[in-house]
């Protein structure tokens, strides 16, 4: 509620206009029977036709007033409700933009969409209904009783009593009904769950031959709902009919009392009908308010769901730094970084250590689920490390604003996602002022020659998510998008997997010169993609199993060898390993170690690498930190 008030605040004018217009409307509505009564009273007593015409003009004014009031209040009601709805939507969306990966996942995409769209709709409609159905009650009651009072005190008193009684009944009914409605809601949910299960589980149900059981279970859910819905209908019918009866009583009571009061010269004959009208109107508004009140709890739930998003505490706070140190040799550094997802019992990454240097390519390879992509996400600060540190250009990423950090990094996500618009708009994502030449250049590097063949070229429309392009095309466009953006670090998160070998090779070749000024981090599944990388990290179960060049890892890292053996043919392996294979086959271990130490001297193995490997690579591992990789 507090939040709703906050969102209503800017629209005091509209709120005031709604209230004023409602008052005018209801005054007009109630004045019409009052004036009519006057006319008839005059008609039967003085028969002053001029007075009657004057009253008719009054009545016309009242009719116009009420119409105008209704018009204006409806207008401002629509204006207010839709604007508040819009503001809540914007607030929810903008809150989501501040979310880290973890914050967002705690809600989930589906739920976030519902909160942004559906929930707000419910809130908006609740505002409209409150204005249209609840607010008139106090106005109608006060004006009605006042008018009745002005006709005759006793009449006013009686009217007030009727309103009081019905209002009390209404409050009690609403309280009772709310409980039944909640129950009905549960039955609706159950019906939906069962239905969804029966539909999505059609295969399993049939495989187990449980059709009959499912049908019975559905039947049961349907019956429970029907029973409950019928109960609600009965409740409504009871409520409906009792209101009807009270109205009858009120009408006869007003006539009875009216007859007596006219007989006592306290009021005039035609005013009886006016009082009957007041009573009917007010009681009717009360009934409407009652129905409206039943729908409000649901809106409150939706409001709460939006509040959770808007007021969600952020797990990642911006640092103060907006400037990164200019060109440095070491672009990125993982210093003993570990990471654990908020609800996980195990670390996803364990003590990760490595550097990315300008002008070099670092590759990460490992099986699915080994934590490769998480490394990229830590660099971009979609998540924060749970231990250790990640530095970009010498500054801990937590000391920077996310904006400053991300201006220095260009990223190709695993799932190539384009936005609706044109190709050019998408490519300019990282550099709004890029020229067409730059875009074409990036497209060429990204092997996206197909764009040239499109009739509209750069202006070709992109559908939502880029679904009008094939997976490979999307991926190449998303690579081109990343290349347009100037950065110190280019991250390719499994970006080559949808490409065929030829394109993959051509792309990597073109990339080499394109991003020579920056550091490159490639996350890959295919070994061919990364054989030529300056350093390769073999990752398994969140631990670095080996770090070095392809040659080094082929000798020293069992995990890497396993990957290579599974992907490469024997002859390819031989070709890649060349002499080393023979060495391994023919020579003694000493030669091996010496070879590594002298020739490359960069191999390093993680502490928990297999025993055989660490024995083999023991000497270079000790040297490594000084050279390139390191602990």
């Amino acid at each position, binding site marked *: 509620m507090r939040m709703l008030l906050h969102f209503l605040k800017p629209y005091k004018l509209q709120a005031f206009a709604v209230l004023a217009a409602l008052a005018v409307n209801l005054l007009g509505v109630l004045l019409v029977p009052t004036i009519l009564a006057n006319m008839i009273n005059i008609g039967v007593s003085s028969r002053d036709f001029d007075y009657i015409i004057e009253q008719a003009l009054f009545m016309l004014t009242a009719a116009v007033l009420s119409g105008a009031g209704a018009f204006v209040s409806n207008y401002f009601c629509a204006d207010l409700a839709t604007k508040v709805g819009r503001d809540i939507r914007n607030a929810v*969306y903008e809150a989501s933009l501040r979310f880290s990966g973890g914050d967002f996942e705690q809600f989930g995409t589906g739920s976030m969409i519902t909160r942004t769209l559906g929930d707000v*709709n419910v809130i908006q*409609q609740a505002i409209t209904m409150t204005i*249209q159905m609840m607010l008139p009650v106090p106005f109608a009651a006060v004006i009605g009783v006042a008018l009745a009072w002005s006709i005759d005190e006793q009449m006013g008193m009686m009217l007030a009593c009727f309103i009081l009684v019905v209002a009390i009944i209404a409050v009690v009914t609403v309280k009772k009904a709310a409980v039944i409605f909640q129950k009905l809601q549960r039955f609706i949910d159950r019906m939906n769950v069962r239905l*969804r*299960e029966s539909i999505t589980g059609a295969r399993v149900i049939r495989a187990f031959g449980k059709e009959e059981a499912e049908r019975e279970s559905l039947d049961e859910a349907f019956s429970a709902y029907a029973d409950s819905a019928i109960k609600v209908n009965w409740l409504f019918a009871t409520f409906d009919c009792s209101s009807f009866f009270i109205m009858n009583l009120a009408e006869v009571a007003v006539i*009875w009392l009216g007859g007596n009061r006219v007989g006592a010269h306290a009021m005039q004959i035609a005013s009886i009908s006016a009082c009957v009208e007041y009573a009917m109107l007010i009681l009717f508004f009360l009934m409407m308010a009652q*129905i409206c009140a039943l729908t409000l709890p649901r809106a409150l739930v939706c409001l709460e769901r939006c509040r959770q998003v808007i007021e969600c505490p952020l797990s990642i706070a911006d640092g103060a730094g907006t400037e990164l140190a200019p060109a440095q040799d070491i672009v990125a550094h993982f210093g003993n970084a570990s990471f654990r997802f908020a609800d996980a019992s195990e670390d996803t990454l364990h003590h990760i250590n490595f550097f990315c240097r300008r002008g070099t390519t670092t590759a990460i390879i490992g099986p699915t689920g080994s934590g490769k992509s998480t490394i990229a996400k830590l660099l971009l600060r979609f998540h924060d490390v749970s231990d250790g540190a990640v530095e970009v250009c010498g500054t801990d990423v937590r000391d920077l604003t996310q904006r400053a950090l991300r201006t220095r990094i260009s990223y190709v996500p695993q799932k190539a996602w384009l936005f609706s618009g044109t190709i050019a708009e998408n490519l300019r994502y990282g550099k709004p002022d890029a020229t067409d030449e730059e875009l074409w250049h990036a497209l060429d590097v990204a092997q996206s020659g197909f764009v040239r063949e499109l009739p509209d070229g750069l202006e070709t429309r992109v559908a939502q998510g880029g679904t009008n392009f094939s997976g490979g095309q999307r991926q190449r466009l998303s690579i081109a998008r990343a290349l347009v953006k100037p950065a110190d670090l280019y991250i390719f998160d499994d970006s080559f997997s949808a490409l065929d070998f030829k394109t993959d090779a051509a792309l990597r070749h073109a990339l080499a010169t394109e991003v020579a000024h920056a550091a490159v981090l490639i996350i890959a599944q295919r070994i061919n993609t990364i054989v030529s990388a300056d350093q390769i990290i073999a990752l398994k179960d969140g631990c670095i199993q080996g770090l070095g060049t392809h040659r080094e890892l082929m000798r020293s890292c069992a995990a890497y060898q396993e990957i290579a053996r599974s992907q490469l043919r024997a002859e390819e392996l031989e070709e890649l390993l060349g002499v080393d294979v023979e060495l391994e086959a023919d020579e003694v271990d000493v030669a091996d170690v010496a070879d590594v130490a002298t020739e490359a001297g960069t191999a390093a193995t993680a502490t928990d690498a297999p025993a055989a490997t660490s024995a083999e690579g023991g000497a270079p591992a000790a040297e490594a930190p000084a050279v390139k990789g390191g602990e």
Partner: protein
Amino acid sequence: MSRENETKNLEEVEAMELIERAQAQLDGIDAAKGADAAGSAGAAGAPGSPDAPSAPDTDAEVPRDAFGVVRRLWTVSKGEHWRFAVVLVSIVCYTIAQIAAPAYSAHLIDLLWANIQRAFAAGEAFSIGWDTGGRECLIFLGIWTVAWAFYTLQAFTMASFAERLNLKLRRAIAQKLNVLPLRFYDANKPGDIMSRATNDLDKVSEVLQRGLLSMLMAVGSVVGAIIMMLRYNVVLTAVFLAFAVAALLMTRLVAKRTLVLAARQQHAVGVLTGHVEEAYSGRIVIHAFNQEQESAARIREATQRLADAMRRTDFMTNVAGPMVRCLVRFSQVALALLGTGFLIAGRLTIGTLQAFFQYVNTAAEPLTQFSLTMNQLQSALAAVERVFDILDEPEIEPDPAHPARVPQPVRGRVAFEHVRFGYDPDRPLMRDVSFVAEPGQKVAIVGATGAGKTTLINLLMRFYEIDGGRITLDGVDTHAMTRADLRRNFGMVLQDAWLREGTIAENIAYGCDGATRDEIIQAAKTAQVDFFVRTMPHDYDTELANDAENISQGQRQLLTIARVLLANPSILILDEATSSVDTRTERAIVAAMEALTSGRTSFVIAHRLSTIVDSDLILVMDHGTIIEQGTHEELLAAGGAYAELYNSQFA
């Protein structure tokens, strides 16, 4: 995501309906009181789950064959026809009483006035006694009570009618769901099917309860009121009718305009939904490219557009009633002027003039709703038609009358013999596929996503019927068996680990009614999920929540493995672990699957080639058909698609 979209639409529709209903009820204000009260009976359908499925939008939809739908509904509601009789009689009686009441009130007021004037003439004060109006007051109350009684009778008669009808149709749908071919499920989104069973039918019950009844009552009231008005004064009636026709024309214009605006609003909703879905799905890109502000601006523009569209629609929907009522009030001014003239001229009494005004209200109010109600009726009929469409969907062919039986115990030899199949029979995918899985063999199915690995399962399990050739189990044509008999021999563990709402124990025992707790625990232990289950709050009695979101994908898969273990089938169909599981769970799944497959014929959908190297038979699929088959060595030696796949894929 599309489901969310649908959910959204649903809420839109729902809210619109609520507003319309509210509006219609607001509109009742000026009318004679009985008709007012007609509104709320249908409200049971109002609250919907936020997760409920979609309803096709817009009230502009029109049934293809309105008369046919009505006739069929009539047939479906057989056994409840007496309710209609009661309701019709009630409505007639109610209308008569309701029309009689103002006439009697005219008499009552005139009588009171005469008595009062007489008393005044005698110089006395007047108070109502039994003979000076008291009796008439009670008679008046009596007339209203009769109206009330019949109103109550019809309200309670109809309170259960619509829901009973819905229940009948829903049961028919539940029945139908079991005999619909899988083809139907694959072709229709779950949300669409669900919406027919929920929203569409709710729409029907609401319209039956409110729209139809209030329309019948309104027609009675209008006709009765106009007859009474004509009896009182022809000139005044003519004046009123002139205004009424104008009002009617106006509501039609407004209703049409509302449809146009609603369509525009729907478009704005679609645009915003698109932007929001896109932004949430691509949020990583937005962050990586520092596009937060631009994206927020884009959303802001879309929300602004939607707000504009909604403002117009809301306003137009809500303003129709006040406009008509304003027009009616203008007519009242004219009538008041003329009427008082008649009164002075002595051609009307006070009572009759006031009664005339009551009739004006009675006759005028339905005008405000007429066009909207027509729209609703139409859309409700279209909704029922959609339900009937489901019920009319072609069904799977019935099981043979004299089914063949596989000799027990089943050995598990599965053979495809010249199988021809296509989801669209005109475009066959498999033309002539043959292979044999010998008892106890492990058959691996390999292929890219969308290559048709599930096609094979669809055929094995007879989820789809083949177009030619035959599939045999231990030499018996599966087509000659009952589906239940056939499927009893298979166990499936799919990636989409479907679990039911219920306890963990119930889920494990799904395929094996009457399994003891010990057996369940044993199966869970074999499936390596026992430890996990024990960490849950009520171990085996833990309720799995909605779509089992309280457990991870990997655990779900383990539970489905336990489920199959307990069912103990002769032949297995397994989908390998998803990539979304952590390594430890993955190891558990692999181990559990090994436990499962030992000694049984198994079909394994492989995602990692390393695990299938030892298979007895590898089927390589592409574009829905089997393009290669053989052992790992044979296929590698052949140097075909498998070899390429094997060499390219990270095992």
